[in-house]
């Protein structure tokens, strides 16, 4: 696709465009990385759009209260972890189906936020809010660097840490995993909390690109993120997929919108094209027998025990 763009719309590859796409999609990458963990354990979280909106407002309110940006970051991620914790409680400990539990939190959190803010933006933030006070040039790269560092750490942890392998084992066969001594319930709880934290960080990195915080952010984010994860080759049935695949999924969907604009398509056909591309990606995956971009993971008893 990128090669085709080079021919059809060479200006797409100008440096400034790539930088903007990177900065714009850094938050999406964080949410998608967290979602990958949840999908790997055979669960799903559709409440992240609502969480994203709340975390943005929390960040704005904390900054407005005069806290230093480090404390703002801490508080925002804390709010995300807490909301992830609620989902974890509902799914891992009360045993509710994740799609239902997070449907409940999605609606309740979104409407709760609307109730509280009545749609009002958080305005008049201190000057140190935008770009963490680091200025535009440095701030942009700071955002990309934070996102990539966290992504790399998560990708590494997923394949090298015991907890990471427990994620795969839980998603492949929770019962077997439990028999083999993998704490399936704790693992499930963990991935929801981690997603909450990553998603909160995403909300923060997105909020600091502006001078104030809008109250209605993140509508439909969950669908975009799930699409990126699935296009990246993670099986919705759990246990199969990689962080790298998700990175590719985010890259594909993140460049698609701008690319279509560069190619001169009309805005009103874009949603249809996006749908067709998601279908095509998944169909190719299904027809080629096994995930094209995803690597099957060894979840044999031996490897699970070794983990």
């Amino acid at each position: 696709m990128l090669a085709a763009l080079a021919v059809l719309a060479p200006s797409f590859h100008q440096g400034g465009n790539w930088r903007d796409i990177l900065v714009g999609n850094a938050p999406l990458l964080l949410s998608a990385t967290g979602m990958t963990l949840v999908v790997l354990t055979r669960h799903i979280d559709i409440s992240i759009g609502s969480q994203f909106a709340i975390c943005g407002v929390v960040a704005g309110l904390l900054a407005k209260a005069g806290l230093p940006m480090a404390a703002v970051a801490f508080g925002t991620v804390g709010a995300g972890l807490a909301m992830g914790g609620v989902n974890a409680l509902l799914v891992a400990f009360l045993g509710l189906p994740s799609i239902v539990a997070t449907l409940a939190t999605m609606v309740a959190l979104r409407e709760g936020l609307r109730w509280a803010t009545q749609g009002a933006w958080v305005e008049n933030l201190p000057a140190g809010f935008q770009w963490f006070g680091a200025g535009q040039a440095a701030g942009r790269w700071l955002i990309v660097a934070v996102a990539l560092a966290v992504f790399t750490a998560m990708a590494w942890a997923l394949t090298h840490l015991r907890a990471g392998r427990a994620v795969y084992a839980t998603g492949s066969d929770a019962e077997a995993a439990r028999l083999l001594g993998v704490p399936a319930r704790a693992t499930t709880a963990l991935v929801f909390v981690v997603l909450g934290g990553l998603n909160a960080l995403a909300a923060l990195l997105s909020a600091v690109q502006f001078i104030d915080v809008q109250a209605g952010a993140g509508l439909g984010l969950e669908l975009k993120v799930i699409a990126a994860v699935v296009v990246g080759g993670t099986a919705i049935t759990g246990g199969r997929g990689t962080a790298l695949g998700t990175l590719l999924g985010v890259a594909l969907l993140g460049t698609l919108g701008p690319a279509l604009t560069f190619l001169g398509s009309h805005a009103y056909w874009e949603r249809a094209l996006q749908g067709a591309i998601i279908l095509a990606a998944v169909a190719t995956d299904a027809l080629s027998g096994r995930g094209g971009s995803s690597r099957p993971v060894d979840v044999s008893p031996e490897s699970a025990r070794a983990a």
Partner: protein
Amino acid sequence: MPPERAQPWGNSSHEAVLALIVLGEVVVFSLLGTNFLSLGNAAEVLRAATPVGLLALALTPVIVSGGIDLSVGSLLGFSAVVLGELWRDGGVPLGTAVPLTLALGAAAGALNALLVARLRMPALIVTLGTFSLFRGLAEGLTAGVENYTGFPAGFLRLGQGYLLGAIPTQALVLVAAAALYGVLLHASVAGRALYAIGFSPEGARHAGLPVGRRLALVYVLSGVMAALAGLVYVAYLGQAKADAGTGYELTAITAVVLGGTSIFGGRGTIHGTLLGVAALAVLHNGLRLADLPTEMAGVLTGLLLVAAILARRWLAGERTTT
């Protein structure tokens, strides 16, 4: 697991809880709301609930069979604008345009069916793709701008008229669809097969059930129902625009799950779904008549979803231990 376990009685305690909730809402809002307890209001609740209700009916067998269809709201919008386009720009008389629109719904449903039932792709992903695709086609066809209006009075009666002076016309559509789906799910061989497939698709295959064909049936039907909901919607509002039915899929899924259908498949009833639709519709209407902030509806819906499942489980546990 044998499909027999999936008979309605398996859920009766849940439906009792749900009926209690609906009753509770009615009691609370008759106290709080102005003119809540009136025939006119009941008619309005029914009228407003019909499009989502039709989608919820369509989703029940889909979810019972272990699948999901996120594309119904988008397909509602797509059908609405195709109807408008055919009738106004294509010069097709409504008598022909209506069946054509329903056929379009069937074709769109068949696309989902092909990918889910034949290619065995996960329904969540397939319909996430068609969710964008159908809405996108509606936007593309109309450039987002076109709004079809001026439909003849005879057609608008479907969405705005009354029978016997009090019953909204579309309520009949809802009742008819509910009856049809009730028969399909609870009194037919195909329905029994759907429960079996929901419990275990592999088991159903081994038992010799035509899994692919049964699944294809529910997705195609879901498409037809979405198109039908689109017709009712256009007749209700008197306009067809590409944003029709935005977000309805989530409300419909909420109603189905609230109604006791297991999201993993294998369990669920049509009357449960109807109760779920009622619980949501009464809640929204009641809050408004009581001058309470409607954001409360969202928060309460979240609580109800969780509480209803926990309550069902508790009651089921209680029964098996006694």
